């Protein structure tokens, strides 16, 4: 078999697993966005506007970016962490003649696909809530790349955290700040320069900035998009390094 194709068994396992939990997964990926859309679209959104835009239109790309983060990260992180630390199922990948880069590729593609599909569901709901969005090919490319970033982050977390509690702390320290500050709910420009610098160091920020700009028809922000791709490469490499480290000690 071609070396590159060796990720397939890992991807296959993730798909078999998801097929068995399809109902739970679908319900899970709908509840979160409905809550967000209700709060910000119907509740808050009717009363405010941002930079002349309807707030629902402004916030929807942010919520999509956030959703790509949550779904991709969670679909890989927790499960892989439990399989590594408690069920030890991860050990069989390590014993098999397969490279860490293939293991990560299989896991990340599965997680990214999961996140991507969840974002589609959210997008459909957004339309139902009356959002106006322009969808282009670039939008979907950025969105999928974002899913790859956060699925890779899920792999990193699953490797770094040696317990369930560690996994929870990782979420609090790394994901939560990004959720609120990564340009999801309000424009980043209005913040003090130091905060702005910090916020732009988070991988979610270029994602929500790019998606918003595309959706609102403000053009394709080249630097932001380069940032998104750069983060995908960085996270993937980091995930491979972490898997290699845990493979032989």
């Amino acid at each position, binding site marked *: *078999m071609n070396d590159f194709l*060796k990720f*397939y*068994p890992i991807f*296959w*396992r993730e798909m*078999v*697993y998801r097929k*068995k*939990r399809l109902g739970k997964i679908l319900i899970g990926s709908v509840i979160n966005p409905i809550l967000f859309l209700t709060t910000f679209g119907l509740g808050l959104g009717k009363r405010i506007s941002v930079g002349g835009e309807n707030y629902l239109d402004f916030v929807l790309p942010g919520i999509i970016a956030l959703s790509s983060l949550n779904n991709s990260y969670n679909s890989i992180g927790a499960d892989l962490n439990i*399989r590594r630390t408690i*069920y*030890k*199922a*991860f*050990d*069989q*990948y*390590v*014993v*098999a*003649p*397969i490279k860490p880069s293939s293991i990560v590729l299989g896991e990340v593609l599965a997680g990214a696909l999961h996140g991507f599909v969840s974002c589609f569901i959210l997008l459909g709901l957004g339309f139902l809530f009356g959002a106006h969005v322009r969808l282009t090919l670039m939008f979907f490319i950025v969105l999928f790349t974002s899913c790859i970033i956060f699925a890779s982050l899920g792999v990193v977390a699953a490797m770094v955290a040696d317990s369930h509690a560690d996994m929870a702390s990782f979420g609090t320290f790394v994901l939560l700040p990004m959720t609120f500050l990564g340009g999801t709910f309000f424009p980043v420009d209005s913040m003090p320069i130091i905060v702005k610098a910090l916020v732009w160091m988070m991988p979610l920020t270029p994602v929500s900035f790019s998606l918003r700009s595309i959706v609102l028809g403000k053009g394709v922000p080249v630097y932001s998009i380069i940032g998104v791709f750069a983060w995908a490469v960085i996270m993937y490499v980091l995930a491979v390094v972490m898997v290699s480290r845990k*493979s*032989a*000690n």
Partner: protein
Amino acid sequence: MEQNQLKDRGTSVFWPIKNKSRRVMHRGRAGIILENTKYIIETKNLVKVFGKIKAVDDISFEIARGEIFALLGPNGAGKTTTIRMLITLSRPTSGTALINGYDVVRQPFEVKKQIGVVPQQSNLERELTAWENMELTGMLYGMKKEDRRKRIQELLEYVGLLDRAHSNVEEYSGGMKRRLMIARALMHRPRILFLDEPTVGLDPQTRRKIWDLIKSMNRSGMTVMFTTHYMEEAENLCNRVAIMNRGKLIAVGTPHELKQNIGRIVLEHLEGDVTTRRFFQSRMEALKYAGSLKDNTNINIRPANLEDVFVMLTGDDLSDLG
């Protein structure tokens, strides 16, 4: 060596390989076995240090093809660490280990293809069925679809799980999981099977079933190495045993040889709360000694077992440590 192999298994055929080294192939239930060195496992001065602790302290041993080899010792003796180094899950601090001629550090991929591993704790995919677990393993080892299907069928039948092939593994009992793990380890037709404490936590009947499985795999030509802290498991199963204590290898030989070395007959003498053991080559000698004792009321004379060997060699009681 090759002569022995032929004599032992009858049906072997010679198989010339392009690199001009002659290899022997066997066909058996476990699949095809390629051979290219005299010993299938060779370790030399193997050391593993964790921080300040020497978990494995300079051990060297060889295992011949077709042997069942047991690594015996109390918990914490370094058995699992030794196995983990041999199966490429842990990098030796120093020393070398060759598996079928391949170096565990420099050629880990080649080593991985030679070995099947049954760990101490279940590492099956719980949400997948037995069939799916086997399928995943077959795919990981790059087996073709049709080959996978045949092999899964054959192996699940072999371990008696074919009728439960499509149940999720989380519904399995401990013994079923262990059998499935053995079947899974055989999926890619390895030359050597490593089992870490294969019967720990199992009931006596299931234990015997696992022993029968190991013996039957071995009869078909598979080399088996396992760790255990059960004396009777080692006595029952293996051709040779290595006794480990505190990271060191303190004796290697057949159970018979090891017992012979300390004396085949044990005399246990209970005085107050203290039992002293003395070893003799024959029952006559033991009886003679018993006759010479002033107080010979609390005396037990019996054949020596591996536990006696262990106590004799280490001064520790295995059951205390275990």
